[in-house]
């Protein structure tokens, strides 16, 4: 093994450890944040007893869940019952590996380490654990694996509530997967590549895709909410209908794994939203060439803030909106989001072709601005003309009760 390969492997292991730890700690902190945000919205204080301002609450919850009794329903399929939380949990963690969290960091060393021998590394190091050539396709593929965890959890519990929850979730996730995949095709059209690094570079050269591909961003946001099973799309859990849906029969750490999986998925979807549509770690200025430690730090903070905003946005939505009904959810997915995404692909195709071949414009900035103008029109058409206040903008025909007797 050459010293370069050893150096690469060493760094990869280090990055894995860091990302794994950060995501797990992040998940723990998210549970606290969720409770704090909901408390803030509801005129309450939230957890404030364990640690300073409740900061140790996640640790207390973790300890509680580890020492609690593991229960098994008598009629459950034990093997699958135990396997299901892991099947939900593992894909969720894998996803964090492909996201570039900051600008590349130059790392140079030649060391002779005990046991390992000579290791060396020269040049910039990507801040993703694995900058896969298939990029966000990997995310789409792996994130859909978690549906197996949910469906199997619902089936193996041998409980009617769980079964209904599992069925709902498989239908929901498969439906929204389609919309999610389609919403990413325009990104592919503008980037020409599916690696995250390239997506970020394309946004650095042009403008952020949230401006030039607004409707894609919208579809991805909605589908992302549905993918993470959060309100208003939390039908698989639907507390008031199905007790707790697919995890009704789970207790202790197995239940926690579902929760960790859900929050890890939230982190991934938020990071993807930030990366694909808000420039990832991009900051105004040139940070990627001849990077420095400072550049990596600043871009890392930028990425964190963008991700954090979407995490907060998810919570904000969750504590504001009621839940969809199952058929309404399906209608939104199949009758609105998928046709919208398909039409949008067509529109972007024509627009990009027209800009390059008819108008002869090659500058990504100008192309982005033209697309932005197009998007303003498209958003107006979709939300105010086609939708006519039926689905998206709050609406209603009957405002007052019909008769009032004085």
């Amino acid at each position, binding site marked *: 093994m050459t010293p370069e390969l050893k150096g690469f492997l060493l760094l990869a292991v280090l990055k894995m450890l860091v990302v794994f730890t950060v995501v797990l700690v992040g998940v723990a902190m998210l549970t606290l944040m969720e409770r704090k945000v*909901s408390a803030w919205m*509801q005129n309450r204080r939230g957890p404030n007893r364990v640690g300073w301002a409740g900061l140790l609450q996640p640790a207390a919850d973790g300890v509680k869940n580890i020492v609690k009794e593991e229960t098994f329903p008598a009629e459950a399929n034990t093997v699958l019952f135990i396997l299901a939380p892991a099947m939900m949990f593992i894909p969720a963690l894998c996803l964090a590996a492909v996201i570039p969290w900051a600008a590349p960091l130059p790392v140079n060393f030649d060391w002779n380490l005990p046991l390992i021998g000579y290791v060396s590394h020269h040049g910039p190091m990507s801040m993703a654990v694995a900058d896969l050539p298939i990029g966000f396709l990997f995310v789409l593929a792996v994130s859909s694996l978690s549906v197996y965890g949910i469906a199997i959890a619902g089936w193996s519990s041998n409980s009617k509530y769980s079964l209904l929850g599992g069925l709902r979730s498989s239908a929901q996730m498969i439906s929204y997967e389609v919309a999610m995949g389609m919403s990413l095709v325009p990104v592919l059209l503008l980037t020409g590549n599916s690696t995250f690094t390239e997506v970020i570079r394309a946004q650095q050269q042009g403008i952020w895709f949230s401006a030039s591909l607004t409707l894609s961003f919208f579809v991805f946001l909605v589908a992302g909410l549905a993918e993470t099973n959060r309100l208003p799309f939390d039908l698989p859990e*639907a507390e008031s*209908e199905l007790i707790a849906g697919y995890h009704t029969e789970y207790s202790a750490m197995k239940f926690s794994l579902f929760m960790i999986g859900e929050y890890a998925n939230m982190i991934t979807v938020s990071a993807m939203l930030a990366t694909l549509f808000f420039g990832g770690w991009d900051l105004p200025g040139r940070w990627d060439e001849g990077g420095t430690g400072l550049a990596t730090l600043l871009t890392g903070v930028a990425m964190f803030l963008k991700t954090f905003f979407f995490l907060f946005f998810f919570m904000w939505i969750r504590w504001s909106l009621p839940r969809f009904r199952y058929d309404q959810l399906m209608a939104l997915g199949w009758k609105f989001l998928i046709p919208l995404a398909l039409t949008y692909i067509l529109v972007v195709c024509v627009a990009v072709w027209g800009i390059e071949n008819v108008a002869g414009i090659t500058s990504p900035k100008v192309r982005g601005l033209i697309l932005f103008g197009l998007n303003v029109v498209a958003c107006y058409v979709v939300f105010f003309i086609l939708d006519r206040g039926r689905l998206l903008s709050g609406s209603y025909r*009957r405002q007052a*009760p019909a008769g*009032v007797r004085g």
Partner: protein
Amino acid sequence: MSTRTVEMALATPGLDAQGRPNRLPLMAVSGTSDDEFGAEHMLVNIGPQHPATHGVLRLVLELEGETVIRCIPHIGYLHSGFEKLGEYRHYNQIIPLTDRTDYLSPMANNVCLALAAEKLMGIEITERCRVLRVIACEMSRIISHLVWLGTTGIDLGAFTPFLWSFYQRERIYNLQEAWTGARLTTSLTRVGGMMADVPEGWEAGLRDFCQTFPKTLDEVDTMFTRNSIWCGRTQNVGILSAEEAISYSLSGPMLRASGVDYDVRKDRPYLGYETYDFDVPVGEHGDIYDRYRVRLEEMYQSNRILEQALDRLGRLKGAPLNTSDHRAILPPKSQAMSDMEAMIHHFKQVMEGVPAPAGEAYMGVENPKGELGYYFVADGTAKPVRWRIRPPSFINLACLPKLCEGALLSDVIAINASVDIVMGEIDR
């Protein structure tokens, strides 16, 4: 025909041809669905312990996929025998029982019982007492509707308005506690008067509540009324036409949402409701959304009544609270200790109770959930021969199977919430 013996545990009581109770296994009536797979219908138990059954209602649902074929409500998990207990108590001793029937609006129940007994005995109450009772009734209406609003929000997945409305409910509970000493078991009224007058400065607290509480309603209104998810979940779901609503003998917001303009406060006024200026909201479509709109508007109207009642209370400062007839109501303690006649009244009332003339009386009032009726049959003693409750929740619940048929599982939860039941009153 499906033979799912596991459902033996779900046996429903009924009578066979000889009138003997039988316990047949509860089975899916239509057995299998008509599709090519011949799939079995699924029986799902919602309750008695379930996040969405308010109290201990149990619904057995027969599902085809997620569509409800049949819904059977099972009641009786909270049976307390209130009506029978009432037959062994003096009229004033029944009042604590009424706290526990519709425990979301105890003060309104107290008022109804006192009114029924007074009607039976022919006792006139004072003006100040009337005003205070109106305040008690409208406070109860607001807290009951607030609970309804919050829990319905939770049932449809919106958790935040629940805490907003419970915060306001808490403020009324504090006022209630200051007045009666209890938050739930208020036992506020007595036959011929009230248990206590409002304490010093209490009116200011209620006035403050009246002025600030509509803001919360406005906020909930912002969150729900034009929210398209909320509209989608509630509009055209659980529709009941005006004719059906009347034939099911519904009352209260359930009836008015279906477009029937009937409010006991307007149609058979009591406590001087005809002299207050308020509107009765009436729906049009009879769906969950209209029930929501009607209840929301009723809270605004209750607030109007409270403000008017507070004005009157200010004018009646120092006026007598209880009727001066001390054969009906206990004389003040100071008199009972010094005045011979008062002491005799006190003694006789405590030992024997207040006798009611033989006869019967029915008093119906507009409770938050509908028309609450108390019916007494008296034989001249101090205890009723029969005390019958007309519980609005129980009668409104009767339309649930009809509303749920053909609905989706999620709709059942929403419909059940919209009926606004309280189990203490249903099982009584």
